[in-house]
């Protein structure tokens, strides 16, 4: 029975990793076609860095991801604090409004933002892409900051002010450090969501601005360049090493505790 269970997990892993292993293999394949193996090469890794289209898409993905994550983290953190200070009634209303984009499918979010930009006559491009990413990231930040605020000792901020701190000092020295884990995980979630997004980006970009997802989507119709495989393999390897490394270090420290909260997965 125990063997059977392990075999089952093994099969699921094989299912999940088969296409990834294949993709990494193709990134070393010395042939443009995916049908045959033309020998081992590092050509695609070299050519990757001189491909202007891919590098610019990578740049867009990273800069949009970083900017959207920073801005939505600031907006979402202040939003969560504002929500926290509201009275119960209005807070419930605001919370359901903020949760709306998460209930909606990505297509609806993308289309609705496209309509907004079209009506406001904003030229589709980098700015609209950034605005769209910020707007679908904010709810996730709010959601990860709110629980931390609820755990906050309500008298602490008052105590700080009694002891002579200005409201600003009270915020930066007392409240912010306490909710920082929530802020940070919100930031990571926003970054991941933005980097991985395709659907919303597809509807809200224009005039030659495209991120990696859109570039891959366009390529998929006429064949994906092995250079993209090389780039994805690099990204995957980096994330893999980072996450496995972090978790292994933790496992050693905690002696393999099964507590899920301790795993470092930005989801």
């Amino acid at each position, binding site marked *: 029975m125990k063997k059977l*269970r*392990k075999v*089952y*997990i093994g099969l*699921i*892993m094989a*299912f*999940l990793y*088969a*296409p*990834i292993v*294949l*993709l990494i293999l*193709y990134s070393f394949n010395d042939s443009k076609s995916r049908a045959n193996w033309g020998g081992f090469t590092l050509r695609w890794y070299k050519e990757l860095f001189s491909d202007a289209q891919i590098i610019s898409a990578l740049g867009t993905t990273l800069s949009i991801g970083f900017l959207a994550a920073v801005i939505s983290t600031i*907006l979402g953190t*202040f*939003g969560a*604090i*504002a929500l926290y*200070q*509201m009275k119960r009634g209005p807070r419930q209303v*605001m919370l359901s*409004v*903020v949760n*709306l984009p998460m*209930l*909606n*499918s*990505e*297509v*609806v*979010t993308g*289309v*609705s933002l*496209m*309509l*907004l930009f079209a009506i406001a006559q904003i030229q589709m491009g980098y700015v609209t892409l950034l605005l769209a990413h910020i707007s679908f990231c*904010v709810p996730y930040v709010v959601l990860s900051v709110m629980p931390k605020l609820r755990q906050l000792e309500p008298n602490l901020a008052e105590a700080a002010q009694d002891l002579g701190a200005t*409201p600003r000092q009270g915020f930066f020295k007392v409240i912010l450090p306490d909710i920082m884990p929530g802020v940070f995980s919100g930031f990571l979630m926003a970054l991941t969501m933005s980097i*991985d997004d*395709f*659907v919303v980006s*597809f*509807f809200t970009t224009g005039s030659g601005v495209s991120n990696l997802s859109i570039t*891959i*989507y366009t390529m*998929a119709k006429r064949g994906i360049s092995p250079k*993209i*495989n090389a780039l*994805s393999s690099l990204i*995957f390897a980096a*994330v893999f090493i980072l*996450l*496995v490394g972090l*978790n292994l270090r933790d*496992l050693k420290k905690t002696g393999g505790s*099964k507590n*899920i909260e301790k*795993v470092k*997965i930005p989801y």
Partner: protein
Amino acid sequence: MKRKGLMVLPFALWAIIFILVPLGLIAWYGITVEEPVAYTEITLEDGTPAFRLEDGTVQTQEPWQKKAVISFQNFKRMVEPTYLRLLIRSLKIALLTTLICLILGYPVALILTGKDFKHPTLWLMLIILPMWMNFLLRTYSWMSILENSGILNSWITALRNAVPAIDQWFTARGVGNKIIFLYNENAVILGMVYNYLSFMIMPIYTVIEKIDKSLLEAAADLGASPSKSFIRVTLPYSLPGVLEGITMVFVPAVTTFVISQLMGGGKVPLIGDIIQNQFGKSSDWHFGSSLSLLVMVVVLAFMGGLQQIDKDEEPQKEVRIF
């Protein structure tokens, strides 16, 4: 008080502009259609022909202006057989995907929370890790496994050439040289199950992990077999995770357009494809918005139904173990 207002205002403004207004626009576009503006032909004083529009403006060019008129024409269009079939197919594929994810994913969560694996969290992380590779690429990679000249077919061919008995078995069943895996509903379902399986495993794992182990011990002490304590303890307690998993798989599955385009090769269009088309090539934003409204209603109805299940089950899992 003043500071409070300062905090609320930008956030409320953001929520209105980027959440409420866009949804309002979808609703508005959804219940309206464009009609040419009415006009009358007139002759100007100098004798040139002109057109007087219904709002009173006069122009010499043929009127091109359109106006939005409230109409439910688009909703009638949706129940036309062409679109109705697509809608039913989307629902069918999404439900099948959800079911398969549940059947495949629940055991994974259950096994990982058991005693077989020393570092279950590490395994869980390995299950989530593939999501870090762009989903378009992973789906594309499946295509190179399944296509006619793909890896799976070349393995099968090799096997058939090596073992005549297998070749006979295939030939007897009328299978040609290549097996067509791609560009049908099954391929689309495979692509969705692959992309959404972790969405099912994660919430179920989290919930099962939190079940008080002493409950299971108590069940065993009182003579319950492992299967009985699974049915009476683990299963009811894991229900919230199952419901969350179902939502997380169903919502993207019912609206995706990328997976159906890649794995279905355009032969299995879903409702998401039609929406994408209305905002692209066909450029009928009104019909696209009506379809988006429909999708929202379907999703909300589905989640409402799920919540009902959750409520019905609530009192039962409090005390009744046997």
